[in-house]
């Protein structure tokens, strides 16, 4: 078992203990820990694995509205392209994979 896996198992075991701490009302006062853990799993796995393939598109899929590298870089607080952004824009145009 890798170090990361051991850490994950330890955290989940800790969550199991928390579920029985007697600081709230009800038979399992800390069960909200499991509720929130399960909700996180549903949000992340459901969102990323099921929903994302259906609703997510590459940046630039809308012609002329999204996807121009300049659109992602040209904010200087008042909407103008600032000198640093120009440098980065040049880098991105030379190596699109860098963005």
């Amino acid at each position, binding site marked *: 078992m890798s170090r990361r896996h051991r850490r994950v198992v330890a955290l989940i075991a800790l969550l199991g203990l928390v579920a029985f701490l007697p600081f709230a009302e009800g038979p399992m006062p*800390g069960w909200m820990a499991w509720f929130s*853990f399960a909700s996180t799993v549903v949000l*992340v796995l459901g969102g990323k694995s099921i929903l994302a393939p259906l609703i997510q598109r590459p940046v630039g899929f809308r012609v002329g509205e999204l996807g121009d590298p300049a*659109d992602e870089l040209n904010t200087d607080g008042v909407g103008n392209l600032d000198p640093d952004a120009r440098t980065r824009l040049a880098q991105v145009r030379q190596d699109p994979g860098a*963005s």
Partner: protein
Amino acid sequence: MTGELHPALVLLVGAVLAAVVPRRWSSAVAVAAGVAAVVAVVALDTGAVATFDFYGYEVTVLQADGLSQPFALAFAVIAVLAAVYGWRTMDRLERSTGLATAAAGIGVVLAGDLLTLFFFWELKVTTAVLLIFAGRRARSAAAGFRYVRVHLVGGVLLLGGILWHLSDTGSLTFGALDLTPATSLVLVGFLLSAAVVPLNAWLPDAYPESTIAGTVVLSAYTTKSAVYVLARGFAGLELLVWLGVIMAVFGVIYAVLEDEIRRLLGYHIISQVGFMVAAVGVGTEAAVNGATAHATAHLLYKGLLMMGVGAVVFAAGASRMSQLGGLARAQPWVLVLYLVGAASISGVPLFSGFPAKELVVAAVGDGGYGTAQWLLKFASVGTFLSVALKLPAWTWFGESTGGAAATTLRRVPTTMYVAMGAAAAANIAIGLRPALLYDLMPSEVVFTPYTASKVFETLVLLAGTSVGFVVLRHRLIPAGKVSVDTDWVYRELPWRVAAVVASRRPAAIGEAPRPDGGFRIVPAGLFGPTASRTKTSIAPGWILGSAVVAAMVLVLAASVLP
């Protein structure tokens, strides 16, 4: 007399002055106007009324009471914070427009009749569009026009509903409204401004396209004034409970997937407004208190969050997490101040969101909506996950994945820190002493947020989410993609339908090729790749898109008819 000075008038005078005074005085004028508006709101006596005769109708331009005053006060405070935040970055026109937007928001919440309400409502839309245009980019202009399209439909429905209601009842008074066909139109106009799903897409589409200070202003007034008018006119309408819950859950799902930091917070506006709309739907005194408290706290912490990510955009020139990372060492105070806002929106004890959110969730449960209460807790998990864990993890921590952190960051002006610090102090003060918030509520608050049980339950909820984040962290790495929202229906579908239709039309012999400036369509099928079009082919898209928006709104209107 001071008690009858309309705070919106103060801000409108400030807006004019900020536009015409020499450039170096403009920032100070904007801050002074905001402070004067705060003083004017505080000086208003509860029950103060100002009326005048308008073609035989008594128009109530000012009506201060327990519901309107907390909204007006929070709106005025945000006007000050935004003016300080934008001291070095806003130009005179933008500063003036921001003050006018604040004036319109305050005008809405102090309006005593539907005519005054409509006037300020439309002023708010107009000035908000100008703030979006202030982004001065092609995509800002496009988003601004989409914003206009959606809100024009909402405005027409609102005006139609008001006139119909006037002909039915002979009254323009704005108070609790019975649900009739006329008031249904008014309700849908309000729901559109509250960004109720599926009429929500204008918000995350438009807000990130403004300037960094413009986004702070935009995030404050439109949806919260919609919450106010719903609480004033339609408290206790059960439909709102479920619309609010859908908003709360929908917003966090999209936020978890989002890569652009300001758009992510835009989805959280939808989610948090969902909490307020649900509480308004419950309609009890405690629930309306909860909606008002949550709106007031939300104005402070969402303003702080928008300012925090705005400082990142200002310094790095990038706004996608997939382009950011590793900024903590360069921006430690921006991170700390952002985290105060993140703790507040997540409902962490000792921060402003805790007493506000607990009040809402308890009121929804006490109102007999147990399922809704659990779904709101589910949304709270998503809020903590995306705002307090995901966004900081890939913006300030980790390795820089793009070029932003590798280049020299621009220095964040001191005035930005001052505004963020003031907002953070307000959030902590309310968290430490909830009475500061509860004493402003429309009716007496009989609720104790700091009990061992409530604090423990909240901490455990946050701990479980944190463990989930650690376990699934690798799956949350920003993908650098765009999420299609419900705006697909009016931004893409009409083009796809037109493309399919065009592909079936036989070409006439000798037909001249279409000029590039026209409606150039590449048949791509209804669900295939995006139909290609030129940038200048805006008119057909507008007509088709607007028709679809109108149809969506009318379907919603039909669904709420009594």
